[in-house]
């Protein structure tokens, strides 16, 4: 359990939030031309990193807005939080 600093509401308990999985998975621009392998890659394959991972979160029991988070999955330490549409921090 940890605290999450919602970019809209400020610091709240993690149980108010819903995790939305890996971030920056782009929907294929031309879905009709995708092979089965490429669909599998887009739909199912995940980085599932042990270490620093980029992910989406939703303040489900608060403002209900989505945002991005950089978190170290080996110790649950939150490195950065940024809004949807913003560029991910490089470091």
């Amino acid at each position: 359990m940890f605290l999450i600093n919602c970019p809209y509401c400020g610091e709240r308990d993690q149980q108010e939030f819903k995790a939305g999985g890996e971030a920056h998975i782009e929907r294929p621009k031309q879905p009709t031309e995708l092979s089965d392998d490429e669909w599998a890659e887009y739909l199912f394959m995940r980085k599932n990193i042990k270490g620093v991972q980029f992910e989406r979160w939703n303040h489900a029991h608060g403002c209900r807005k989505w945002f991005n988070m950089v978190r170290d999955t080996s110790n649950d330490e939150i490195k950065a939080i940024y809004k949807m549409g913003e560029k991910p921090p490089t470091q």
Partner: protein
Amino acid sequence: MRNKYSVFSLIKNALSYHENWQRAWKDPTPKKEYDAVIVGGGGHGLATAYYLAKKHNINNIAVVEKGWIGGGNTGRNTTIIRSNYLWDASAGLYDHALKIWESLSQELNYNVMFSQRGVMNLAHNLQDVRDLKRRTHANRLNGIDAVYLSTEEVKKFCPIINTSPDIRYPVLGGTLQRRAGTARHDAVAWGYARGADAMGVDIIQNCEVKGIKRNGDSVEGIETTKGFIKTKKVGVVAAGHSSVIANMAGLRLPLESKPLQALVSEPVKPIIDTVVMSNAVHAYVSQSDKGELVIGAGTDDYVSYTQKGSHQIVEGTLNAILELYPIFSRMRMLRQWGGIVDICPDASPILSKTSIKGLYFNCGWGTGGFKATPGSGDLFAHTIANDEPHKLNAAFNLNRFVSGDLVDEHGAAAVAH
């Protein structure tokens, strides 16, 4: 030669104050080369090595384990064993395991304390009732024992359940698999380790895999903290860390690793002689031979490798437990812990070859791998030895995420994942 455990060996060793028992397995340093290396010394990995040696005549095997054997999810689960899965492929897989469990202690000459005390699954709403009845029929068509119970029959089978109609989620019925039950989790790892060691398998503990060496599209060996080990076949059985190992080989897997928690209470006299699971309110409970209530909670929804979960998950489970079993209201919980479970999008496992020759993965068991330990080891050994899956694990290949032929047990199995 391994000494056989028997009542006579017990008496003999009692006379010397149990100080002269033979070591159950050796502590070897790794050889330069093996015919096959199993990555991960949990129940599934050790069982794989055991069946490779026993049924496929491959004896030059190493099991490498980064910690100590059985120290991961094998030692962290709630030990429930059942095979009442909905789909044919899952029914075949899990019932294969259940059949091996039934004679495992005799086969290993090691008491795994398999107890067929039955597993009951509760229905709390009309959709649950429909789903559980459908599953009961599907199970029976697959030759798996299953009966549907009315509320009165649930109460009769487990009298401490609150079946009053005025609780938040009233018990509307349930299913019972009588052949299902529990086993002693550590003993499963130790029994397979002892059996595999006796056939010449090297069990190498405190040896972490750091890299997988490839020559083009084939495996050449693994880099470990105890040096390079040459081998043409690598079977990865690393549970929550499967993606980490896959990454070393340049593969991607459809897995997410999440914390799953469990807890035990202070020990009390026998009060519940079966396993009761509830999908809808996510609470399941049984009682260990020591007398502790063993309670399983749910997974957190975020990826984490920390082996600890959120407090509210445990709180939710205990709320449900108290609503269903008011008699436990004054029980105190002694220990709580987490394990990292690797979950597939369809909540079914992967026992499969990969695009790299000689590299095999056994993963994705998610929240319910313990029950499958013997069957998983047997089928994975077959897959590694023949470079082809057995017909019982053919459906659980990695390619199903490309073909779309998923084995969708999400919510269809007896408990939520």
